[in-house]
């Protein structure tokens, strides 16, 4: 199965891999081969390698996703200012064009690699792997991967990160989680950003935004903050500290983490229905 997660095995298709024989003759003599492999098998394989790289260098990797202009880079700047002494931070920036964001981050004194995707609307595991060659992972405790601003495509590609963070700025509309369920369902933490502007907006109800995230069965923390005023930033910094600590504990136990685990995948792992590439990965 998909070794990196096995997340595609559900009650609806399990019968395809259980029972005997993957091969069956169809009526007209052609052979049917059951595959049941994730469509992004290659990407997932590369992502597993990236995750292994992160783990072997003691790095916590976090994937930041949002619509363009939700304040990902501003949040990173504020985070680096607050935690720069505590942790060695590195950043991979994804944009279609320009070095602008990487330059902003470098301005804060931390290493940043810019990936320009050209016309691609998302980062994939291969692009991130390539960027990792330009970073000294031994000098990094927390690596932020700032994905291309897009609430659709980045949700489908595992990069090897340990956690997904999705930003929703208060200028966007509180029903966005309901409009982009795939993205917000997969968030390990949801940040409602630019909260300082709430005072000027009468059409964004943060509670409604939170309810829309919970309606996706998402149990992760939802935090309101402003990178500009620093309001609510402490809870975010504490979450980061906790995650960094949890990553250290996992590494001490030879363990790793993936964002948003599907329990069904773990069930299959336990029963050894692997094929294809094999990695040793544990999930929490």
């Amino acid at each position, binding site marked *: 199965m998909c070794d990196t997660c096995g*997340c*595609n095995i*559900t*009650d*609806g*298709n399990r019968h*395809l891999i259980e029972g005997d024989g993957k091969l069956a003759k*169809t009526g007209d*003599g*052609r*052979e*049917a*081969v*059951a*595959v*049941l*492999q*994730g*469509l*992004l*098998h*290659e*990407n997932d394989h590369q992502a597993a390698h990236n995750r292994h790289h992160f783990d072997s260098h003691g790095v916590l990797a976090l994937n930041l996703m949002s619509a363009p202009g939700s304040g990902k880079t501003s949040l990173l700047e504020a985070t680096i200012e607050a935690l720069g002494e505590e942790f060695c931070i590195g950043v991979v920036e994804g944009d279609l064009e320009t070095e602008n964001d990487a330059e902003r981050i470098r301005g804060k004194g931390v290493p940043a690699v810019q990936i320009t995707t050209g016309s*691609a*609307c*998302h980062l*994939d595991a291969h692009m991130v792997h390539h960027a990792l060659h330009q970073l000294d992972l031994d000098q990094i405790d927390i690596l932020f991967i700032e994905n291309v601003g897009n609430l*659709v*495509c980045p*949700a*489908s*590609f595992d990069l090897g990160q340990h956690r997904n963070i999705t930003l929703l700025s208060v200028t966007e509309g509180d029903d966005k*989680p*309901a*409009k982009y*369920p*795939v*993205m917000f*369902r997969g968030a390990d933490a949801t940040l409602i950003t630019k909260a300082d502007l709430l005072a000027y907006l009468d059409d964004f109800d943060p509670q409604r935004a939170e309810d*829309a995230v*919970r*309606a*996706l*069965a*998402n*149990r992760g923390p939802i935090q309101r903050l402003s990178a500009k005023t620093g309001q609510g930033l402490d809870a975010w910094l504490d979450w980061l500290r906790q995650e960094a600590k949890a990553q250290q504990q996992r590494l001490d136990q030879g363990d790793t983490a993936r964002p948003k685990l*599907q*329990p*069904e995948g773990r069930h299959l792992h336990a029963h050894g229905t692997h094929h294809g590439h094999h990695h040793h990965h544990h999930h929490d």
Partner: protein
Amino acid sequence: MHELSICYALMQQVESIAAREQAQRVTLIRLQIGPLAGVEPELLAQAFPMAAAGTCAAEAKLQLDTLPVRVQCEACGAETDAKPNRLLCGQCGDYRTRLLSGDEMLLASLELERPDDED
């Protein structure tokens, strides 16, 4: 529009399986795409001929199956249907549910022709 990249990834998989099975041609590709996969089946179908051109699956039929969005509630245990943006328990309304199906993005099976299948 990431469906094209997904289609190219699919074709890589299809070609390597066809080679492994020593197939001459692939005649049918069956995919399972759940409503929560983040992939638009229609766009995938449009991108397919572009990605398949020149491969052993150039003439293959692409069949897309969709599984329903189903959740199981951790509070009351009920298994119910759900909507992609409303994954609450259909019985008690709790949000602590687990997705049973609906997020698949899978190459389910292939139908192949081997050289000795020719009649």
